[in-house]
């Protein structure tokens, strides 16, 4: 007990003047940090030591700790601090994965929330989760081993999540005899790595011993050559994310519209950046409508000013439309609105990313549908190398383009965690499958504006004396789409109409030769054909397309691109047995033998249209009959 007696002393002020003590402790700030390193690096010992030295351990816990230390500890008769934080029943007995455990301690100046990520497996996912709310990361290094692959991985991940302050805690100094040269070499090693990897965050080196207590709360005589702050001093004084957030432009995602009665209408949210006060001109995004703040309401009375990090309710001078998912911002410097982005995504689920699949995306208080493109590359977190990849597996980090089904209000992640960080949710299982960071908006959305031209689609069409249309032929392989489309085009040509036939096979030789036959590639194939067809109708043409286009969703997507009435869906209705019997290209035979995968009708579904504009039955009609039938229904052509 002698060791505990000397260290374990409560603040004298508590006994002498509790009111003064409370007054002091009411003005503490809050720092959140993450500790990175394995048990071997002494991580649990360090956290246990911080809890212990800041008097966050009660006597009964201490007694249990002392008993446990003697029984199962690794430190002989001494206290094993690691036992304070290790040993969750679940981990111990069920072998389950725990992403992050949170610990709390406080000093006179600050309260601390420590995100502690146990285990090696799932490490990327866990560390990213813990770091997402952290102001600072402590990277623990065993002084005997120096900078290892794991240290670099931790530094990279901390950098990726935007942790601005990194502490390189060179631990177990006692085991290298407090050797200054060795310590300097380790710091220099890390400095070189940081420079090379382009990690520009601040980092601070501190020589410590979690076990012996060197430079944790008080400066150690063993390292007289070290003149920097102790770990605790540094944690107590480092700048908080919240302070930086306050200096940025005002933004508040709206969580809830507060409407207790007809006389009150307020917008509730957590201010993510900047500050707001009555009289401020504000703008509601994405609508862009402006108003003036009249009140900042709380239960404790109206505020003269509210800052980033506070949850408030704001009232406007005008009846401006504003609801959950909107962002209230300072009027003259609003955030961007876009629907296409370059992103970095960390995959968190056993089921890998399905390129082209629609996921829920939640960013701030906005929830939209989003699809992710094939990653440009993934990052090997140990070597920082870029690798080619078709998808993202559990714990993979990849850079990929992402599109949302409607524009969202955002800021680059480096400017705002609140408006740049998002999660992806599987629509069937509802699991959180990925987390990501928006970097910038891509073409088409914000940065590429439509170029206004004097000769428009109407002029093009008038000159050709026709109404532009897309005749979209859909049906099984071998149903006769291309044959019938060809017959239709011949007839239109004879009628002096300007046409173009986009054929599935032909397009795959050029424009879409990079695409295969997976579900994602088929979706992209149709999207591109739709875009090309749209350009051609803008040029005034009657476009005929002959694609299996098996999925309703994609056909509807193309329909949605066109002006009302210009998309004519023609269902070439041929039963599977008939198409397979014809097997003009021998594809069904191949598919049945297994030589051809993902073949529509065999091992990939065909979704027949519910309400096609035109339906032709190729069992009852010849190709010529079908073409005549279609032309009749298309009349008049202008």
């Amino acid at each position: 007990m002698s060791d505990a007696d000397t260290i374990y002393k409560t603040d004298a002020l508590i006994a002498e003047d509790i009111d003064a003590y409370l007054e002091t402790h009411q003005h503490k700030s809050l720092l959140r940090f993450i500790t990175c390193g394995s048990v071997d690096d002494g991580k649990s010992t360090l956290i246990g030591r911080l809890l212990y030295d800041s008097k966050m351990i009660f006597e009964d816990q201490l007694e249990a700790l002392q008993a446990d230390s003697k029984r199962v500890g690794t430190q002989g008769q001494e206290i094993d601090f690691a036992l304070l934080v290790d040993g969750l029943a679940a981990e111990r007995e069920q072998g389950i994965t725990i992403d992050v455990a949170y610990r709390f301690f406080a000093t006179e100046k600050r309260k601390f929330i420590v995100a502690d990520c146990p285990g090696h497996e799932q490490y990327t996912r866990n560390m990213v989760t813990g770091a997402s709310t952290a102001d600072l990361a402590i990277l623990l290094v065993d002084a005997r081993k120096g900078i290892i692959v794991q240290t670099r991985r931790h530094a990279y991940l901390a950098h990726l999540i935007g942790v601005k302050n990194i502490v390189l805690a060179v631990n177990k100094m006692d085991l290298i005899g407090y050797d200054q040269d060795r310590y300097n070499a380790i710091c220099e090693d890390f400095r070189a790595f940081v420079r090379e990897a382009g990690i520009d965050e601040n980092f601070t080196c501190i020589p410590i011993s979690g076990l012996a207590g060197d430079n944790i709360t008080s400066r150690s005589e063993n390292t007289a050559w070290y003149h920097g702050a102790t770990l605790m001093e540094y944690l107590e004084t480092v700048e908080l994310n919240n302070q930086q957030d306050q200096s940025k432009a005002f933004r508040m995602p709206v969580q809830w519209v507060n409407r207790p009665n007809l006389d009150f209408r307020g917008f509730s949210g957590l201010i993510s950046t900047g500050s707001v006060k009555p009289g401020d001109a504000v703008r509601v995004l994405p609508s862009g409508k402006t108003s003036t703040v009249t009140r900042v309401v709380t239960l404790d009375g109206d505020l003269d000013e509210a800052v980033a990090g506070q949850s408030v309710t704001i009232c406007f001078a005008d009846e401006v439309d504003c609801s959950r998912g909107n962002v209230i911002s300072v009027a003259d410097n609003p955030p961007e609105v876009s629907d296409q982005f370059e992103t970095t995504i960390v995959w968190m689920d056993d089921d890998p990313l399905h390129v082209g699949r629609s996921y829920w995306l939640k960013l701030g208080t906005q929830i939209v549908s989003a699809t992710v493109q094939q990653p440009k590359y993934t990052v090997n977190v140990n070597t920082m190398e870029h690798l080619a990849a078709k998808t993202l597996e559990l714990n993979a980090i990849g850079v990929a383009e992402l599109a949302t089904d409607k524009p969202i209000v955002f800021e680059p992640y480096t400017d705002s965690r609140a408006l740049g960080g998002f999660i992806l949710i599987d629509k069937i299982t509802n699991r959180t499958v990925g987390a990501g960071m928006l970097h910038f908006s891509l073409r088409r959305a914000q940065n590429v504006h439509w170029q206004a031209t004097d000769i428009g689609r109407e002029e093009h069409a008038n000159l050709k004396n026709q109404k532009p249309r897309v005749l979209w032929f859909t049906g099984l392989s071998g149903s006769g789409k291309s044959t019938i489309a060809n017959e239709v085009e011949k007839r239109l040509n004879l009628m002096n109409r300007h046409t173009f036939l986009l054929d599935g096979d032909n397009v795959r030789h050029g424009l879409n030769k990079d695409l295969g036959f997976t579900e994602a590639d088929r979706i992209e194939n149709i999207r591109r054909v739709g875009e090309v067809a749209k350009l051609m109708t803008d040029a005034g043409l009657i476009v005929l397309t002959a694609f299996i286009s098996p999925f309703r969703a994609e056909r509807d997507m193309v329909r949605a691109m066109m002006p009302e009435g210009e998309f004519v869906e023609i269902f070439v209705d041929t039963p599977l047995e008939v198409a397979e019997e014809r097997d003009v290209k021998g594809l069904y035979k191949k598919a049945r033998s297994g030589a051809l995968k993902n073949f529509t009708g065999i091992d990939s579904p065909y979704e027949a249209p519910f309400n096609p504009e035109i339906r032709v039955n190729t069992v009852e009609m010849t190709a010529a009959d079908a073409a005549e039938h279609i032309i009749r229904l298309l009349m008049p052509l202008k």
Partner: protein
Amino acid sequence: MARILTHLERLEAESIHIMREVVAESERPVMLYSVGKDSAVMLHLARKAFYPSPPPFPLLHVDTTWKFQEMYKMRDQMAKESGMELLVYQNQDAKDRGINPFDHGPLHTDMWKTQGLKMALDQFGFDAAFGGARRDEEKSRAKERIFSFRTATHGWDPKNQRPELWNLYNARKTKGESIRIFPISNWTELDIWQYIHLNNIPIVPLYFSAKRPTFEYQGQLFMADDIERLERVMGKRPEITERSIRFRTLGCFPLTGAVESDAKTLPEVIQEMLLTTTSERQGRVIDKDGGDASMEKKKQEGYF
């Protein structure tokens, strides 16, 4: 120019943010109200979150019929003051079978609280329930997420919880599933007391020292809140002594150990808490049945 927010301001803002997210994204939320100091803080935060509207959900007290009389008084008073609907649920089965803490041990907690809670949630059809648990209370709570997902049968599957990044909570669920939400996860015992002190939040007087009738039972000190009932259940009238006592945590009166104390004001209570240095849950019998992993086990069975 930056105004440094205090840790209590940050914790408050976080809890309010969580409550608003739940209200916006769930169909039928409810706040579990146990009348203790954590519930008092949670209720105060709810009033702040939605002011000037009253909190848009009812309070639910899963009652065991064995709470202290002063708790029942406080419960009714707070419901009235907040303008919220108060629902009280007592497990009829437990009532019929006369389940009590003396004869039935752990079954008492299981039937009245664990089963009672499940039955209440099912009966009212709540899909989201706020609870006042904190991560610092107990080792196994440290890893608990703020949004905890339960199957249609209220099971907690530790392998199937969702990662929580930034302040983005995924509240989506399929029909029949429900969520337990812990908005004060990141508060410590000291934070709770300081916040009560700063905001003058009313708490049950039992937290403050007073002369009260007590008896000793299995080495711990208890308050004889309803002596007639105790006598019926225990089979004999316990020996009553007047002592200056108070409670660090409140539950069923026969299950909640008292401490001898002279702390009559909030600062004195905080002072005592900081000086006595025994952890808060020591007074509760519940953590001890079933050994080391008992809380973990209770949670999987559906306990909060």
